[in-house]
């Protein structure tokens, strides 16, 4: 890792991170503040949901008892807005440091100094990890910070685990994007492929929920492994899901470093 590159890249990421974090803080905080109201009116709200098509409920992860913190925050924050925010950061930051900077000629400036390719890409990965940690922390802290203010008791450890799961989910997107960015050296192609893959996996997960015979296809979806409801409601630790995210992320980043060291870098 190179501290100078890290400093500059964190600085370049600050505007994006500020607005994404602010979005999650405001939205997460608002949904947490609204939670007691929903609990009070749950009978009416559930009656309303019964009129909605089951496909829509499945697509938006509206399932279980919404008056439970896990079901509620999964439906309204963690499986709804967090994947979008994580995908934005997980696509924009890795593709900027590899593909976009190569296209604009900045990468060549950095890599014709004594900074090695390995150190450069490891630093790029560190920036992604830091960005995802900031966003996951902002999201979970906003929820866990506002709930006590509106009189709702929380289990801090459960929110910590949810934050870790959200972080791992975001890192997996970042890592896959990094690998594709190094492979294609094109911000557009790498970003488009990842966005398309996430959309496809979202559809697979929704179909798997609606068609029990096809439930196995959910294993191909990243969203299957990102399920915070039981973490918040039952206090379970999703060790298997975390392991899947961890393995995929580490493998993609390692593959990216391996490839980055060996390939031509031409903008």
């Amino acid at each position, binding site marked *: 890792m190179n501290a100078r590159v890290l400093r500059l890249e964190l600085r370049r990421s600050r505007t994006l991170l500020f607005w994404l974090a602010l979005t999650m803080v405001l939205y997460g905080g608002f949904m947490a503040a609204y939670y007691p109201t929903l609990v009070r009116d749950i009978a009416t709200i559930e009656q309303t949901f019964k009129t909605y098509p089951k496909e829509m409920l499945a697509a938006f992860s509206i399932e279980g008892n919404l008056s439970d913190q896990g079901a509620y925050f999964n439906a309204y924050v963690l499986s709804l807005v967090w994947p979008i925010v994580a995908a934005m950061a997980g696509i924009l930051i890795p593709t900027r440091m590899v593909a976009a900077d190569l296209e604009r*000629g900045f990468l*060549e*400036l*950095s*890599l*014709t100094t004594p900074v090695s390719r390995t150190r450069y890409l490891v630093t790029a990965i560190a920036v992604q990890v830091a960005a995802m940690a900031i966003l996951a922390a902002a999201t979970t802290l906003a929820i866990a910070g506002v709930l006590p203010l509106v009189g709702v008791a929380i289990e801090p450890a459960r929110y910590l685990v949810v934050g870790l799961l959200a972080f791992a989910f975001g890192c997996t997107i970042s890592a896959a994007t990094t690998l594709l960015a190094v492979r294609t050296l094109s911000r557009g192609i790498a970003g488009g492929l990842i966005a398309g893959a996430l959309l496809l996996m979202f559809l697979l997960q929704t179909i798997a929920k609606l068609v029990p015979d096809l439930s196995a296809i959910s294993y191909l979806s990243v969203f299957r492994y990102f399920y915070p409801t039981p973490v918040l409601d039952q206090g379970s630790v999703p060790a298997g899901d975390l392991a899947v995210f961890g393995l995929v992320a580490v493998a993609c980043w390692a593959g990216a470093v391996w490839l980055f060291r060996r390939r*031509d*870098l031409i*903008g």
Partner: protein
Amino acid sequence: MSVIEVSGLTKSYGARRGVIELDFAVDAGEVFGFLGPNGAGKTTTIRLLTGMVCPTAGEARVFGHDAWRDAPAVHRQMAVVASDPGFLGELTVAEQLDHLADLRNLPAGVWRPLAERLELEPNVQIRKLSRGNRQKIGVVAVFMGAESLLVMDEPTSGLDPLMQREFLGLVSEARAAGRTVFLSSHNLAEVERTCDRVGVIREGRLVEIAPMQALIGLHWRSVNIVFAEAPDADAFDLPDVRVVATSGREAHLMVRGDVNPLVRRLGRFDLVDLSVATPDLEDVFLHLYEPTAPDAAGTRTAEVTR
């Protein structure tokens, strides 16, 4: 001692040609010009020397290190500026140069004297600069350190004539300090004024490599003479001298290489006027880029006497 040693260096991008079997060396303290039109392979050669691309065959060694495998070791002794460096528009000139200095383990602000010399305003955001001023950042960046080898790809494109003159001064100072310069340029006058030797690349192959004066000297000069009296028909029957036209007391000749035999022959005559047009690098360059390079002076008269 050679700072750069290139042997059999070949790079292809799939079916697309990059460079083919380049062989050359650049000695320590030498200013080496690398010429060729767009697409000839200049930038590919520089990318091979800087380790940005991997050779398909052959090797490039810089300070004895393999330029691809030991790139960071090479970069510790090399400063590079690309033809269109992608400086970050959101940074100021000072921030960008300090960042690059930092990566090269140079102290912050090391670039300030050079920036003043090139009249580069340090506190302006790069995105607000003209192309010429952005190019100045590249020139400052490449000269600001103490690296022994400076590699520059079209460093003066966009610079005004005054700044080009400053650039020539910087190259001269680098040479005087014993630094080696590898300069790719379209500016033939600049190469002619700064370089000790020149390599000319055409369609990926090195077609000429020679000391500057030898390269120019090997080509045909145009000689116009006005005699006091009309000379004999065989007055110019000398090796490497060709009569283009004679008219009474005037003669237009072409001479290649050593001019002394012709000068001695002219000593026999009473001359009214004599002019010798030495070809410049552009003449040589154009000659090398003719579809076929003929030997006969007559077929090249227009080019050489331009």
